[in-house]
């Protein structure tokens, strides 16, 4: 270093009065990482920055970032920083440049190669150009983001944000501040191209086939600011699965999901009750869990030997020096499921012997407690370190094993992450619950104070009568004429977003429905006889002609058969039960019956529209015999468009279920339809009831009578039942074949279109 240059620097710093900002240690470090010439270049850069009046603390950050980059990727990287910083400052301002220096440490931690670092700098410059307001915000999250994305993925993620938000700085800020779900989803997809939603159906069917295990599956989504969920978890009937397993791609990711679900299936099929925690130490809890994993997997393998191949893919541990308990446990996991694995570590050898010697007792979960407890003691005596805070079950396909243990008020550290994750998931579920908010605001039980301000031109509580219907009195065996009054109410549309939300998250089902519709439409061709032209002779017609000629009659000239595609000739009236009881939640989920029914109806409508079957949709409920209500979502003549979706989304559950009257009305509206077949499709969660009827058989018998008289008019009635308690009554109303019970109501949405197609082709 020339004295002159050094002197020049001294001057400069003195002049700017900023020398004190860079501490001695950093100066020393700079001199170490750079050669003399490079140091000179760096100070030139510093001078340029100083000339731009960058803040004090930013200068120190710059110096330190330069050291880090030069250490990690070589001096060239340390020198590049300054040029990028200037570019960023030009476009996004001083604060952005300062934030970038501070964030460089994260880049150095997560990016492996010098070229990755260069790519990151280049991306930051592009960000400053395309979304100047967002640079500083993103820098705050850089550690979180780069933990998930490599340099190339980071680049495409940044571009997705800029492109997606377009010219709207507020939207860009949302994205880069990770407040926009698509931002999180985008990089989850980048870090693993296979999401659980893509594999869920097949993984679920696999454990269904193997063990008749049909769990409810929930996705553990990523929430910004929290660690990404890394392991699955189960809790009785509910199974939680990470939305993506980081670093797993393509077919490997698919198999990994299958391994994970099959593992939980093994717990469910061969596991016992929850273990009490007692006085077990964290290491013992971890080891008991590990033995239990091996126990259930070995039992599963005994039944299904092929599962060993599936699981062994992920057991890659190798023998070596035992440094930490986690590494030994990784090897033990492998040793207990891989008979070909060689490892002469005495602890592992002992564990293996204990485990396989108790082979005859494998069906007893107690052996996991015994063996795991003993092994934990041994490790303690060997003074091998175990960090319960950072411990994660390995291999990654295994669940966190929180489901194996009795629930404690105060979970030990090992479990806290899992507990966290569960909590998380529960919150997300709540957020996703698609109950439109307005339902509560506009529910008739709590009318809004300011009625005049409502958007609807027709007041909510005024229907107009459209028909009267008789009702069957089974005690007297006769019809009471004009007994019920049907009023049509205005179906209040939900906001447009709520309408389109009905179909969102069901992309996969929609694709399936469309395919199914396609194949149903090009259904089997049929031969149509007695045609003037056609592909083949109509033998019967020819013979008839011959006979006619012989008898001296005038022959019919139509002698051919032609192939025609069989047309569906069916119109459908969908009656949606929207009584109070449909507001109940389904099982332990956060979804209500009506919300599921709305989604299901939307998907069904999609199918019917695709098939070209004319259809109408009405919600119905009742408030005594003089107020049976119809909320019209779609008429036969209307098309199923966005506004119909909005009306569907706006249906809410209230009042009672006078089914018979609704059926008669549906029949009356269906009967002018000129199709060969006419079908009333009822979606309901229970037996009929109403406030003015005490005898529970009365309305059931009336509904049954209504179904029969519709059958008399050639109208089929089919009911999809959503709750199992009232089964018997519903079967009585609709007959065995006219009633289909959906065992898991939350599955209705995906199932209904398929049931419909099956029942009508």
């Amino acid at each position, binding site marked *: 270093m020339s004295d002159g240059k050094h002197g020049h620097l001294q001057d400069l710093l003195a002049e700017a009065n900023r020398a004190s900002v860079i501490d001695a240690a950093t100066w020393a470090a700079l001199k170490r990482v750079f050669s003399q010439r490079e140091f000179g270049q760096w100070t030139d850069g510093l001078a340029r920055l100083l000339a731009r009046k960058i803040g004090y603390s930013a200068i120190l950050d710059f110096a330190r970032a330069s050291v880090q980059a030069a250490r990690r990727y070589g001096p060239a990287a340390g020198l590049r920083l300054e040029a990028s910083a200037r570019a960023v400052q030009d476009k996004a301002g001083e604060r952005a440049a300062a934030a970038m220096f501070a964030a460089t440490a994260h880049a150095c931690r997560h990016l492996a190669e010098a070229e990755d670092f260069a790519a990151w700098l280049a991306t930051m410059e592009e960000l400053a150009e395309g979304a100047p307001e967002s640079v500083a915000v993103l820098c705050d999250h850089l550690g979180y983001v780069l933990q998930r994305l490599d340099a190339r993925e980071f680049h495409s993620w940044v571009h997705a944000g800029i492109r997606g938000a377009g010219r709207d700085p507020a939207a860009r800020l949302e994205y880069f501040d990770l407040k926009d779900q698509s931002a999180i989803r985008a990089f989850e997809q980048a870090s693993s191209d296979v999401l659980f939603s893509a594999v869920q159906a097949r*993984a679920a*069917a*696999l454990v269904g*086939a193997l063990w008749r295990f049909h769990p409810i599956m929930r996705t553990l989504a990523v929430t910004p600011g929290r660690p990404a969920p890394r392991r699955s978890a189960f809790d009785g009937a509910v199974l939680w699965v990470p939305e993506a397993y980081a670093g797993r791609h393509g077919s490997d990711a698919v198999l990994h999901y*299958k391994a994970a679900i*099959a593992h939980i299936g093994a717990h469910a099929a061969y596991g016992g009750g929850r273990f009490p925690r007692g006085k077990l130490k964290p290491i013992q809890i971890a080891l008991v869990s590990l033995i239990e994993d091996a126990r259930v997997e070995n039992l599963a393998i005994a039944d299904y030997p*092929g599962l060993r191949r599936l699981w062994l893919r992920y057991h890659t541990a190798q023998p070596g020096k035992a440094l930490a308990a986690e590494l030994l446990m990784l090897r033990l996991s492998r040793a207990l499921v891989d008979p070909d694995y060689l490892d002469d570590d005495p602890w592992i050898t002992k564990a293996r012997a204990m485990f396989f010697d108790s082979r005859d007792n494998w069906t007893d979960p107690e052996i996991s407690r015994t063996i795991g407890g003993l092994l934990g003691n041994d490790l303690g005596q060997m003074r091998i370190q175990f960090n319960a805070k950072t411990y994660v079950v390995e291999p990654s396909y295994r669940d966190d094993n929180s489901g194996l243990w009795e629930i404690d008020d105060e979970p030990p550290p090992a479990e806290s992450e899992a507990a966290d994750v569960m909590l998380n998931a529960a919150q997300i579920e709540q957020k996703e619950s698609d109950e439109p908010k307005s339902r509560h605001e506009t529910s008739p039980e709590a009318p809004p104070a300011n009625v005049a301000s409502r958007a609807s031109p027709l007041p909510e509580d005024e229907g107009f009568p459209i028909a009267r219907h008789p009702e069957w009195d089974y005690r007297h065996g006769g019809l009471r004429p004009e007994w019920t009054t049907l009023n049509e109410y205005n179906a209040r549309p939900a906001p447009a977003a709520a309408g389109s939300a009905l179909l969102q998250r069901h992309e996969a089902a929609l694709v399936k429905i469309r395919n199914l519709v396609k194949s149903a439409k090009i259904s089997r061709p049929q031969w149509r006889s007695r045609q003037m032209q056609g592909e083949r002779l109509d033998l019967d017609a020819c013979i008839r002609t011959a006979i006619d000629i012989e008898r001296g009659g005038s022959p019919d000239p139509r002698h051919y058969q032609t192939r025609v595609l069989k047309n569906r000739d069916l119109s459908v009236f969908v009656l949606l039960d929207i009584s109070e009881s449909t507001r109940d939640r389904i099982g332990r989920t956060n979804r209500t019956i009506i919300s599921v029914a709305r989604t299901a109806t939307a998907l069904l409508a999609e199918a019917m529209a695709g098939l070209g079957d004319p259809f109408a949709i009405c919600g119905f409920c009742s408030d005594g015999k003089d107020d049976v209500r119809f909320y019209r979502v779609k008429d036969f003549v209307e098309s199923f468009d966005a506004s119909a979706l909005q009306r569907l989304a706006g249906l809410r559950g209230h009042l009672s279920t006078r089914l018979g009257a609704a059926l008669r009305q549906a029949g009356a509206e269906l009967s002018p339809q000129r199709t060969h077949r006419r079908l009333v499709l009822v979606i309901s969660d229970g037996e009929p009831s109403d406030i003015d009827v005490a005898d529970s058989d009365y309305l059931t018998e009336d509904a049954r009578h209504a179904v029969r008289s519709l059958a008399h008019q050639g109208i089929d009635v089919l009911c999809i039942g959503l709750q199992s308690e009232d089964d018997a009554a519903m079967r009585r109303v609709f007959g065995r*074949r006219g009633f289909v019970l959906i065992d898991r109501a939350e599955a209705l949405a995906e199932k209904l279109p398929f049931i419909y197609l*099956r029942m009508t*082709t």
Partner: protein
Amino acid sequence: MDLTHYRIAEEPFYKPLHNEVPMFEAAYASRMPVMLKGPTGCGKTRFIEYMAWRLGRPLITIACHEDMTASDLVGRYLLDADGTVWHDGPLTLAVRYGAICYLDEVVEARQDTTVVIHPLTDERRTLPLEKRNELVAAHPDFQLVISYNPGYQSVIKDLKESTKQRFIALDFSYPNAVEESQIIQSEAGVSGEIADLLVKIGARSRNLKGHGLDEGASTRMLIQAGRLIGHDMPVNEACQAALVVPITDDPDMRDALSESINACV
């Protein structure tokens, strides 16, 4: 008319699963119409062949389908050198000359086709041939047997309640594991080990009934897989061809089935 052609010369292999053999004999004794209920490929056809052999009656089988007309059952006029001649359909043949008539998958036929069997199922035991202006009284040995797959749910396709009530019904379901293994061994000529494996695979697919599949693998499919294996096809591939692909077009279900077969071997 000679129905020798319809006689079953050799004893078909049939493994009785329940009381179906004596029950059928009792029904035949008073010529009661019989309905064989159960999923396809579970042995209904084999059973009726066996019973026809056992009772020494000719068997006329008609596979019903949607495009079938009443003429296909009862007969029609045909032309020949001398003009038109009446030809008995298979049902008429059975009625006139005393065979067991087996209408397979009767719901597949349209209802206006199947009405012709009505007068055959009650005391009248007659078959009207409208076109010919003839009322055929059933031969004393004639018996009507239909098969019916209750898993086939369609509001539109179903037997009339009044029709169903005239039959006695025998419930067929898949044989239990031991029996099914024996049937596969005997029919496909494979070892007990392979047969057991196929039974296990079959059970996996049947677990998915109602969970994505309308029906699991039938005994027939397992036998076919066994035959492929007998000709040196690997188990996975044989099962793929004999059951996975025929059973479903849903890629998720196919994948789950293949994966559960992988798990079994």
